[in-house]
């Protein structure tokens, strides 16, 4: 039992070496110990394996690795449970059952991982085209986003955040009437202006939404026209004239 610890293959005493080197965790180490001793997973001699496990992590200098320590604790607990006297008439529930289940499950994962490694190696032996032509110059698509949309999107993200939200945007009543009046005043002054002008400097969400809704309402009533001269250009607002109906 003392000669089987896998010291030779592991060498260094850094705790990290387990993940990077031979073992990918305590379950992997356990499987290794069981294989070395040619033991059945379904009937683990816990006392023996627990001792070996402790010895292995001691020798590997893994004392700082929490994952291994947790498993060591589990094994010691199991060892004690196995020593407790059993009542033979009772249905005895094997305290090892959970560990056995986990080991079988992990063994399967390791098999799949091995299979995947072989596939990945085969795939890596095939090269895709190395030279990729520069992306074509694509003509600018039509406007796809504006500030209102962006703000609404930000709010919908915030609403979807599940954990305690530190800050919530307090909804204020929209002032569509005020914005309508502002737009009408601008329309009197100018035949055409950008929607940005109507927003005013540093607009907040409320005034943006209000202005936008007001513009849409006025457009619906045939008072103004919302245009975009070219893709990505600022949105323009113009007085509705008799001949242009859209």
């Amino acid at each position, binding site marked *: 039992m003392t000669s089987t610890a896998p010291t030779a293959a592991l060498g260094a005493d850094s705790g990290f070496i387990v*993940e*990077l080197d031979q073992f*990918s*965790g*305590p*379950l*992997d180490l356990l499987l290794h110990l069981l294989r070395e001793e040619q033991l059945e997973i379904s009937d683990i001699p816990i006392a023996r394996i627990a001792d070996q496990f402790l010895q292995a992590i001691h020798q590997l200098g893994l004392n700082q690795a*929490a*994952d291994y320590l947790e*498993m060591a604790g589990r094994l010691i607990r199991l060892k004690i449970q196995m020593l407790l006297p059993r009542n033979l008439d009772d249905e005895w529930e094997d305290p090892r059952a959970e560990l056995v*289940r*986990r080991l*079988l*499950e*992990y063994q*399967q*994962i*390791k098999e*799949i*991982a*091995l*299979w*995947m*490694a072989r*596939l*990945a*190696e*085969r*795939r*890596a*032996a*095939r*090269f*895709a*085209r*190395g030279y*990729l*032509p520069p992306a074509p110059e694509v003509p600018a698509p039509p406007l796809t986003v504006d500030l209102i949309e962006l703000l609404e999107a930000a709010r919908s993200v915030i609403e979807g955040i*599940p*954990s305690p939200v530190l800050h919530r945007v307090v909804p204020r009543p929209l002032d569509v009437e005020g914005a309508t009046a502002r737009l009408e005043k601008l329309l009197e002054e100018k035949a055409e202006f950008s929607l940005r002008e109507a927003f005013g400097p540093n607009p907040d969400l409320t005034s943006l939404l209000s202005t936008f809704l007001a513009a849409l309402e006025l457009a619906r009533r045939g008072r103004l026209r919302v245009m975009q001269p070219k893709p990505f250009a600022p949105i323009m607002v113009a007085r509705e004239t008799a001949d242009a109906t859209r």
Partner: protein
Amino acid sequence: MKPLTQLVEAALFSASRPLTVEELAALDSDATLAEVRAALDQLREIYDFNQHAVELLELAGGWQILTRPAYAEAIERARISLRVPKLTPAALETLAVIAYRQPVGRADIEEIRGVSASGVLRTLQERGLIEVVGRSEGLGRPLLYGTTPQFLEVLGLEDLSNLPDAEELTVALHPHAARTEDEGDEAAAYVPAES
């Protein structure tokens, strides 16, 4: 070579990833999906028949031209191109858990592997092999992970149903889940995200 086959070849040469039949059909507004498939067949036959060093393969739901494996060593030795670095055992195991149990949260992955998964999950995400596919309804609504098309590409798989013995493994990986007979193997192996 038919004109559509030429067009398909040019597009596949210009793409950095497998292209779907639908994407290829967009090359020619007159082309039907069946015609695109026929063009792909013709191209594959030409590469095989004329013994080209490249071949046309179906993977990750699309089609891609790749060099045949026989040349990898010489190319690497001549320092012309390098194979992608191998995945670590930790990465492979984590991918295996996610591939079979997706959508799956970090706690389940850690329970199965017996080690912390945060570092490896992040690496796999940055490499584009896994992605967040939703949130669990459970306490704290933890993120749920699933594999990406890139995962299929790296393994050279057509789709997730190519994973081995899906039904058998899935049953074994869900020892407490009572399964009804009529559940198909693919459905059992892959549960799409609800989002």
